[in-house]
């Protein structure tokens, strides 16, 4: 069964069409990277798949079902955004516990403890997130996105502004979950995207301009294709 099936997806904000008929499919366990210039609609596409945005037309199916049909289906989605999703007035542990409880995770305290260890924040867990450095907050956000063990992980330019430790943690996690979790990632760095994913798509002006499944190891070839799609003289 395909993890993600998007068909003819359109989204209009008033008269502006952000997505103009996007069709793509991702198999379970695959990792897809989406490249595209600013304003192409990458964030809109990701948020629509995550059920945060209601499409104007077309359809989204996750594991065969429309995720908007039942609110509980959101439990299969994890999101890493460029916003931290954290409450500065709560401690690191409390932020994770809050999310764990609301996702209905069984034995939340255990899970939270394990996640904190994975991202290296056990020592700072009882401190308010307000006292965290940006890198620590980012690591906590990543942990938060995984607290309910979602089969689908969506990441919107997750490496932007990440410090080296946090970037390392993220790359480590993404590499470890390859094959078991379905990943969709948007990024500006073609090199990084190719290193992490099996398939790629290029989104331009709300449409998929290019898609490829294998043979993505040649960085220069991909850069050339990207330049063509986007219209920058190579």
């Amino acid at each position, binding site marked *: 069964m395909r993890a993600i099936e998007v068909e003819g997806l359109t989204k209009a904000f008033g008269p502006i069409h952000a997505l103009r008929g996007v069709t793509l499919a991702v198999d379970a366990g695959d990792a897809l990277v989406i490249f595209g210039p600013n304003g192409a609609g990458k964030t809109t596409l990701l*948020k629509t798949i*995550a059920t945060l945005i*209601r499409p104007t037309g077309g359809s989204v199916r996750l594991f065969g079902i429309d995720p908007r049909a039942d609110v*509980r289906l*959101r439990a299969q989605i994890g999101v890493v*955004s460029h916003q931290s999703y954290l*409450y500065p*007035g709560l401690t690191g542990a409390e932020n994770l516990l809050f999310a764990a*409880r*609301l996702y209905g995770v069984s034995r939340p305290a255990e899970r939270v403890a394990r996640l904190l260890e994975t991202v290296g924040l056990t020592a700072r867990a009882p401190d308010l997130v307000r006292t965290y450095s940006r890198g620590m907050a980012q690591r906590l956000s990543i942990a938060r996105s995984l607290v309910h063990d979602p089969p689908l992980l969506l990441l919107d330019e997750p490496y932007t502004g990440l410090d080296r430790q946090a970037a390392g943690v993220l790359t480590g996690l993404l590499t470890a979950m390859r094959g078991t979790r379905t990943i969709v990632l948007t990024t500006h760095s073609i090199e990084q995207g190719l290193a992490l994913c099996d398939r790629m798509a290029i989104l331009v002006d709300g449409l998929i301009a290019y898609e490829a499944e294998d043979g993505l190891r040649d960085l220069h070839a991909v850069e050339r294709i990207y330049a063509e799609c986007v219209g920058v003289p190579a």
Partner: protein
Amino acid sequence: MSAVGTVGQLLWKDLVVEWRGREILTAMLVFSMLVAVVFNFAFSPSPADAPRLLPGMLWVTLAFASTLGLSRSFVLEHDHGAIEALRLFPFDPSLIYAGKLLANLLYLLAVEILLLPALAAIAGVPLLASAGPLAVILVLGSIGLVAVGTIFSAMSVNTRIREVLLPVLLFPLAAPVLISGVRAMLSVLAGASWGAILPGLRILIAFDVVFLVVGYVIFEFVLEE
């Protein structure tokens, strides 16, 4: 997690954050006391006038103070994208409304418990005799203010004139609460019985029921994109 459990969790989050910082309560209290003092200077009510002026002063103060709390409670969610995270949870977005509403109601009631006796002491109006009806009016009115206020606070936090938009939205729409609340309190302080204020109580209850239901149903459209 059950709906009640979810709302409880959401409420816990708001209360813990507020307890640690106490920004909302402090702001609301200080502001309320200041306004009360200003009113007293402005009107210099004699002991005979005071019962006539107190309800109006009280409700105007509460209306403004409530906007402070209401807007702060959503700024908390807006700043780090927490509201988006809340929308990703596997529960009905209307529960977010319920959680925020309860938190805002608690803040407002806390302010009222401190403000009303203080105002009465400053203005020299004896309140204990009519504590029952006054409490009922305050609670019903507060529920109404918070029921509509929570909807509009979620809306205005997303606009570029957020500090201005919330009071501008709230005051006309909360007019039935303010009008009936003042009128009912005036009657009570003048010695009226429960029967005399029954029409007002009915209006307050109707307002509360209508807008709690409307708020609950419509909230997902406020959050949606």
